[in-house]
């Protein structure tokens, strides 16, 4: 099942990507802030991830990844941080929106 890791990432991003445009949060209006808030941490964690993988802190089971690497990381791992960053902002904004008037 080589596409397993990629598949989990796509499933994780799907729901937030669809509802990010919902009128109560309208996330895509802030795409510039969103891009910066996702990319800066992602770049830092790509570097950390790459160094940690090289040192043997962790590794990736070749049975569940496509096998395409950039440097020593599978492409899924680059996508991972972008997806989690996006899902984080989405979830945080949903919580804020739900708490409006109650906090």
């Amino acid at each position: 099942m080589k596409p397993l890791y990629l598949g989990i990432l796509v499933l994780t991003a799907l729901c937030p990507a669809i509802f990010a445009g919902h009128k109560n949060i309208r996330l895509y209006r802030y795409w510039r802030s969103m891009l910066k808030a996702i990319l800066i941490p992602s770049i830092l964690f790509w570097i950390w991830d790459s160094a940690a993988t090289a040192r043997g802190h962790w590794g990736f089971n070749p049975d569940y990844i496509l096998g395409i690497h950039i440097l020593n990381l599978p492409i899924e791992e680059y996508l991972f941080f972008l997806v989690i960053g996006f899902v984080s902002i989405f979830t945080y904004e949903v919580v804020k929106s739900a708490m409006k008037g109650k906090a």
Partner: protein
Amino acid sequence: MKEYTVFSSMAVLTVFILDGILGTGLRKSRAFWIFVLIMGLAELGVNGFLTSRPVFLYGRPFISGLKIFTIPIEDFIYGFAFVMLVIVLWEFFRKGSKSENERF
């Protein structure tokens, strides 16, 4: 040395300091901690699945060995540092952008 344990803990500390420096005040925000709880539960499911296959393999000398189901606790610390950094920067950049619509 338990490098993963040490580095991920240091990352969390750094992000807390950044939250203070940038004045984003997430430490004191109820919405933020509810968000952390939701993300933690999501990680239990998703990372629980990924570590049980296992998709990820861990270097034993570098982790404490403490786990929640199949997930090393370091993954929670590392994940927390990442998502908190994202939200710190998100709040920071949002405050800085005057216009409601960020035009292309």
